[in-house]
């Protein structure tokens, strides 16, 4: 008996579209799944990457700018303020203004 027999009932169905451990039915013959094959001579991992890096990458990242720009700006503002405040609290002026109980 093959070791996967116990799980055979879990084979591809409406929610299962990958093979279970080495199923014999063949990877490409499942119902409802379309797989395209590319000739190795046509396969390009990063076609036009230099051009895309300059233009498409910039366009796509630019489109997301608001979503990460606002949080990172707030985060950096917090970082800058804390550094400045800590330096002040450890300075002579800070000690005079707030007492010397601060470390």
């Amino acid at each position, binding site marked *: 008996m093959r070791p996967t027999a116990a799980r055979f009932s879990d084979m591809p169905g409406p929610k*299962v*579209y990958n093979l279970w451990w080495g199923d014999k039915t063949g990877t*490409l013959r499942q119902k409802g799944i*379309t797989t395209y094959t590319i000739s190795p001579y046509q396969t390009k991992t990063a076609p036009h990457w230099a051009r895309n890096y300059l233009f498409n990458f910039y366009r796509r990242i630019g489109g997301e700018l608001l979503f990460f720009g606002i*949080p990172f700006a707030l985060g950096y503002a917090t970082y800058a303020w804390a550094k400045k405040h800590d330096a002040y609290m450890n300075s002579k002026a800070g000690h005079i203004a707030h007492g010397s109980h601060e470390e």
Partner: protein
Amino acid sequence: MRLLKSHVLLRLFNSYVVDSPQPANLSYLWNFGSLLAVCLIIQILTGAFLAMHYTPNVDFAFNSVEHIMRDVNNGWIVRYTHANVASFFFIFVYMHIARGIYYGSYKSPRVLVWSIGTIILILMMAFLNYGPKCTNTYFENLIAFLGYVLPYGQMSLWGATVITNLLSAIPVFGQDLVELIWGGFSVSNATLNRFFSLHYLLPFLLAALALGHLIALHVHGSNNPNGVTSSGDRYAMHPYFIFKDLVTIFAFFLILSIIVFFYPNLLGHSDNYIPADPMVTPASIVPEWYLLPFYAILRSIPNKLLGVIAMFGSLLILLILPIADLSRIRGSQFRPAMKLAFWFFVVDFIILMWIGSQHPNSPYVEIGQISTAFYFAWFLIIVPAIGIVENTLMDIATES
């Protein structure tokens, strides 16, 4: 039928890395899985060679590491590679998790994949850190933790002391538990020896869990950037995705080489080049960079027991994401509010990492406390709230 598809073992290989149909629209953010597999293999190989020359004894550990660095042929490459790949391991793990959060990869039907991943993360935190502890004379985080102890330097010893002491916060039997783990009344030879043993053993457990992660993934297949089914457009794993994975693997090798050959101690702590000394406490005890966010969460809560609970809770809370995300849409691609919330979470994580490296003074303490509160609120309030609002707006818009 080709042997690759009929042989009992080869067809397994075939269905995972040759013919396996993958969504055609996977972006480069789906490359971290293969990078993590490469990291694990590198760590196990370099670790095995290090173990051939390392001596897990408090009197010899530090010197045996220096012996590896100076006398063993190319030992310095092996050790620096092991130490730096550990850092890359965590960089990739964090990116891998962030990808999962952003694209809703944790949602049903991939809850098991997500849960196994969380267990892998906790194990990495807990046990990898024994290594550096063994290298100095003392011990720091569990696999990462276990590894950090191995050189038995100052940060190894005191890191181990701090981290293992956390367990003493457990009521009633905490102190007994800590002494049981130490094998004595302080971090000692017995501790170093057992940390080394566990540091060698646990990566194999990690490898087994990673296989479980893959098996669970292959039941339903990979998620994709759009979050909808990709059954209509797939490429076989080989050749397209194999070569796409190789692009980032070689990029990783390039960057790793630059760091190992030119900046090998960039991510380490200089105190670990001082042999461990139980009589001298370092000016500040700082964990490895990848543990800093969790260290910040621990320190932001004044009560020791609650701090320890919060620290472990901050990892375990990842498990509730599949339940907490109430949105009907998978992933953030078409959910602007969730995109914004995601990046706030990322920034919060980076802030916690920074706070963990600072002395516990004002204003760092307060920033750490606010960031900790935000961290938990993100999972418990923000994510469910965004889901409810989106679903409601969708219902209103489609009612007529």
